[in-house]
């Protein structure tokens, strides 16, 4: 049995899974994205028990499990909590370099929003940098209706 195994070529089988999804964005998400699209405003949800504004917004508070949340607008400007500049290109990236990923604490929010940072000079990116949202002209109710954040 072993003789023929030595002469067998190693074969590969190629495949690809392409499955379309249609995710309901939900009540909370719909309000967030509609307001972003129509008014260029960023809406978070506020938990009175925890005294926290969540960005992105949530239907229930993940900390105290309360569902009595209320809408609160947050600023489109905030502070960079952390960032990284990818040194590789990938199909999944939304734009060509140079750009960075960052987590931004928008003024009025208590949690950070993960997004893209662009329009920065060499060495300009640092924790604590003030950044502001740049909105797309044609918005469709998508997280990239904010094109990116850039230094103020």
């Amino acid at each position, binding site marked *: 049995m072993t003789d023929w195994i030595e002469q067998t070529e190693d074969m590969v089988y190629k495949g690809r899974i392409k499955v379309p999804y249609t*995710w309901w964005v939900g009540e909370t998400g719909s309000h967030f994205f509609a307001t972003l699209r129509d008014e260029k405003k960023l809406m978070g949800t506020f938990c009175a028990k925890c005294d926290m504004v969540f960005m*992105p917004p949530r239907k229930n508070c993940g900390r105290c499990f309360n569902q009595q949340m209320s809408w609160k607008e947050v600023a489109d400007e905030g502070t960079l*909590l*952390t960032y*990284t500049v990818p*040194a590789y290109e990938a199909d999944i*990236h939304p734009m060509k370099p140079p750009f960075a990923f960052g987590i931004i*604490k928008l003024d009025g929010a208590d*949690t*950070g929003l993960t997004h893209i940072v662009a329009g920065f000079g060499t060495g300009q990116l640092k924790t604590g940098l003030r950044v502001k949202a740049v909105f797309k002209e044609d918005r469709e109710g998508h997280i990239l209706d904010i094109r990116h954040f850039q230094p103020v």
Partner: protein
Amino acid sequence: MDKVGIVGVGQTKYERRKVGETFFDMIYEVTVKALDDAGLTIDDIDNVVTVSNDFWDGRTISSMAVQDACGARHKDISTVEGDGVYGAFYGAMRVLSGSFGTTLVVAHNKCSQSRMNQITNAMFDPIYTRALGLDAVTSSAMQARAYMDAFGVTAGQLAKVSVKNHRNAKNNPLAQIALDLTVEDVLKSRMLADPLHLLDASPITDGAAAVIWANETAAGKAKKQPVWLKGVGHMSDAYHLGDRDLARSPALVGAAGKAYAMAGIADPLKQLDVAEVSDVFSYMELMWYEGLGFCPEGGGGGLIDSGATEMGGDLPVNPSGGCLSANPVLVAGLARLIECVLQVRGEADARQVQGCSTALAHGIDGPCGQSHCVMVIGK
């Protein structure tokens, strides 16, 4: 808690690309190895827990395909989709439930067979985050930045983890990447996403691993003295990266607290003889030192500088070479546990820590160590 111990272990060699091998080949290999190690047969196995991930396998319900390879046909088989230590935890629980005398836990992955960045991108929320194109490398890089900025940890201190673990891997015949490096070598290696260089990151790996748990009665049949479960805990942090303080790991503190309380560990540096932690990126090992209580918060850089976690130090960490030397995702945590078993048994050959009787294994799950599982085992 009743006694439950590991009586058999098996690992494949970890490789960049296991040419010609399928998941089933690897699973069969480690199942046979674990059974031989235990001196048991497949009929002595009462139930099976598999660990795998549907995206990586390219098959949903990936656990349901492996019956032939791990002897699970007509047995109870369930799955943990998460790091191997979590699978081991579940396997031990099934024995502790009293319903089963033995559990075979087997983890597999072939990261070479698809695209790491597309698969890890998919762990992010499809509506708020996925379209940004984040993956495991870029999200971890953001955590590394947050950690370094919070505590003044340097790129050089991160590099020391890579130097230590790649050198330790020279003593592990199963490790994928064993290297003699200097801090300079790490800092000069290609930047992936600042502050992480290529040598700060774990490689793409194929591999599988298995352990067999047994209660006291079933362990009587086994060849070797069991390595007993002393304590275990796991805890998860929030999902959205922005909800978390990425510079700290409260979930690890919580998980370790539970494990230490069960195991009677008040001073981990003194009472543990060895630790195998999930250093998927170099900075993570430093953060996990803190979460595990090996040093105070912010003290990870200081601890690596002190040499305490080197071979020959007070508490060697990752004598196997860790995830930096081989990272078959989901298998790696089980490999950490198996390395601990070998240490306690005195079977770790060139990577043996002398006089080892209590060991800690650690695994993570989710982006930036969202969740942690800590297991303490011993004689």
